[in-house]
């Protein structure tokens, strides 16, 4: 049996490949990106002609996976937690239509917001969609979860959410691979009532989905991902979800003295929870993200048994868990290190020296100073968001992907001028195009600065969906050709770039200025710069 050293993300991808996956669709987002990068690099995937595709956004990715599942093959869509907001519509409705070939939705949550704007917990989405969730605790389980969840998906004809968190997604451990299974044959669904969600069908689908819920609880109760182990210390029983179980084992040398329910599959295995509760005088819930399990238990058995966790204050409400926090919640002796040093100063991430976005930000700040007034820059998410920091201090907002052009439009409608939108080429394709059409339709006085570095730089340089077609898209959406300008963000062109920006900012209708220069990192990679010392 072969063993490989894999990230949690990679283990899940390899597991899916070995389980006969036919297609992996994704939009990049930390910490989920390496799932699809692994598939796209994998020689096995290439040999087996597995589709490994960067989609325009998470919604198109999930819909493509749904279509592949409809055709009878095994498929998955991968995204970061906030990506599921974008894909929420297909996610929730796919649960009604169901899966034909196995369908996985892999979502990587980011507690502590290492690279995200919030720490939402994807397990809550599974309650809205009424689908099961598998939450692996380690890399081996991430590998095993893929085949298990695909099988579960096919057996019950239901999509399954696989939840990862940053520390599992981005940690490596040896993983033992299992046997590899062939792909499903093409066998498109013939069930129109299932896939045409007219109300008359959808009501029946919904009834079927509700009926499945009891089966899902039974699946959880016998799942290899949910394991009850008994212990002699009955003062507390621990529910340890996902990677929290590792921390529990770490601080108890692998032998917890108390009864423990390891939770790795939802809906909650009610009978196992009740058996655990019967074994002890209080409960402690260890979970990454929201106090999801804790709040449900508090409602059911909070009167009879003290329940501690993130809600009760035994653990912090926000941020990721750690061995130290788990040890504290268990009342174990602290292991103290050296005192913290007051010397280090923060080292915030910054634009690479010479980055084109820096030149665009400088030009934009100077152009806005020229026109004076109460102008605002509504930015989006990408490397250019770092223009928020000195020395640029070039942007005023950054809320979620796509909220640049549209917020600028609303502010312009309110009378704010200049209203500038700043967004990257990938974000434009992801969710900027529709907002631009809104601006064109209403001749809104919005100046769009589209920083085109020909890649998705923020997440490591993936291919960007609109590369080479941005002008055509803008013109197609109805931007007037004379207000579609292209500049080259370079220090030597600063004065002319400021002039172009100032002109378009003064124009009281929709205009787009494309600031085009390639990302230095992808440029370096393309030129095959030698990787001395640097990355393996």
């Amino acid at each position, binding site marked *: 049996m072969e063993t490989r050293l894999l990230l949690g993300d990679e283990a899940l991808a390899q597991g899916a490949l070995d389980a006969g996956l036919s297609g992996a669709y994704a939009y990049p987002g930390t910490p989920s990106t390496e799932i699809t990068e692994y598939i796209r690099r994998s020689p096995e995937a290439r040999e087996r002609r597995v589709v490994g595709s960067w989609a325009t956004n998470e919604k198109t990715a999930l819909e493509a996976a749904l279509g592949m599942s409809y055709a009878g093959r095994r498929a998955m869509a991968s995204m970061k937690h906030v990506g599921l907001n974008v894909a929420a519509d297909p996610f929730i409705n796919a649960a009604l239509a169901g899966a034909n070939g196995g369908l996985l939705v892999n979502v990587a949550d980011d507690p502590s917001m290492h690279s995200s704007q919030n720490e939402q917990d994807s397990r809550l989405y599974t309650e809205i969609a009424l689908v099961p969730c598998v939450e692996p605790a380690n890399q081996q389980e991430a590998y095993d979860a893929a085949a298990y969840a695909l099988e579960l998906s096919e057996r019950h004809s239901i999509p399954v959410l696989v939840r990862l968190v940053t*520390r599992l997604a981005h940690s490596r*451990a040896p993983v033992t691979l299992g046997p590899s299974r062939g792909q499903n044959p093409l066998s498109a669904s013939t069930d129109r009532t299932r896939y045409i969600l007219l109300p008359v069908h959808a009501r029946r689908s919904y009834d079927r989905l509700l009926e499945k819920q009891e089966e899902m609880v039974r699946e959880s109760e016998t799942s290899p991902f949910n394991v009850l182990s008994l212990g002699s210390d009955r003062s507390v029983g621990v529910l340890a979800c996902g990677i929290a179980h590792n921390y529990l084992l*770490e601080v108890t040398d692998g032998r917890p003295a108390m009864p423990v329910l390891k939770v790795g599959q939802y809906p909650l295995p009610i009978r196992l929870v009740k058996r655990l509760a019967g074994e002890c005088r209080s409960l402690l819930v260890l979970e990454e993200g929201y106090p999801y399990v804790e709040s449900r238990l508090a409602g059911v058995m909070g009167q009879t048994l003290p329940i501690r966790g993130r809600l009760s204050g035994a653990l912090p409400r926000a941020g990721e868990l750690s061995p130290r926090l788990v040890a504290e919640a268990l009342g174990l002796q*602290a*292991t*103290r*290190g*050296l005192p913290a040093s007051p*010397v280090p100063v923060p080292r915030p991430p910054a634009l690479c020296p010479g980055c084109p976005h820096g030149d665009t930000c400088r030009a934009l700040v100077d152009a806005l100073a020229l026109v004076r007034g109460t102008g605002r820059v509504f930015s989006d998410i990408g490397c250019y968001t770092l223009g928020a920091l000195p020395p640029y201090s070039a942007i005023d907002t950054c809320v979620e992907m796509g909220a640049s052009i549209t917020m600028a439009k609303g502010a312009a409608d309110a009378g704010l001028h200049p209203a500038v939108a700043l967004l990257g080429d990938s974000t434009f394709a992801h969710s900027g195009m529709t907002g631009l059409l809104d601006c064109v339709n209403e001749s809104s006085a919005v100046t769009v600065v589209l920083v085109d570095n020909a890649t998705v730089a923020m997440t490591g340089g993936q291919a960007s969906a609109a590369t080479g077609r941005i002008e055509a898209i803008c013109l197609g959406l109805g931007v007037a050709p004379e207000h579609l300008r292209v500049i080259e963000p370079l220090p030597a062109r600063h004065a002319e770039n400021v002039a172009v920006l100032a002109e378009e900012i003064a124009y009281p209708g929709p205009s787009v200025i494309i600031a085009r220069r390639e990302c230095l990192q992808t440029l370096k990679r393309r030129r095959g710069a030698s990787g001395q010392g640097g990355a393996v």
Partner: protein
Amino acid sequence: MRCDILLAGVGGQGLLSVAAVIGHAALSLGLHLRQCEVHGMAQRGGIVQSHIRYGDAPLYSDLVREGTADLILSLEPMECLRYLPFLRPEGVVVTSSVPVRNVPDYPDLALVLAAVRQIPHHRIVDAAALASEAGSPQAANFAVLGAATPHLGLPVNALAASLDAAFASKDTRIREANARAFRLGVAAACDAAAPSLG
């Protein structure tokens, strides 16, 4: 045997390559291994860290528990100071003396090095000097790795083999420079009798 390490550095210094070399060496000896990395946003010139753990008994947590690290291996002197609460009182810090000053308020280097010298067990390595002696300024990361070998609990030869394998696809000049920097680091560690003399 068990070793819990915190690797510290700044984006672009090749910290994850050092982690990969240690990890593959540990695996080649049949040890259990867990290694946690920082990807994404934090890499753009910001702080990079990795937790790496190996030993002959199973390991559970991907993160090192505070107060239990045996070693902080740092490619930058200010960076090692961030993680002192992770270091057990008898633990060792091995750090490069060469600052990366990409922030305007970087403290006075003398102050930074004085703080390192207050750590009971420390070794400060002039990684830039060793790397240029090796013929490649980019190989400074492996000079620091070499200097940390007395505290890794892994045979030097296993690490050298892992280093060579990691760059197997690269040109021999690069591989030789990496190997020289690593050996110079090893030698520098042998010269000093105890780490606190560094």
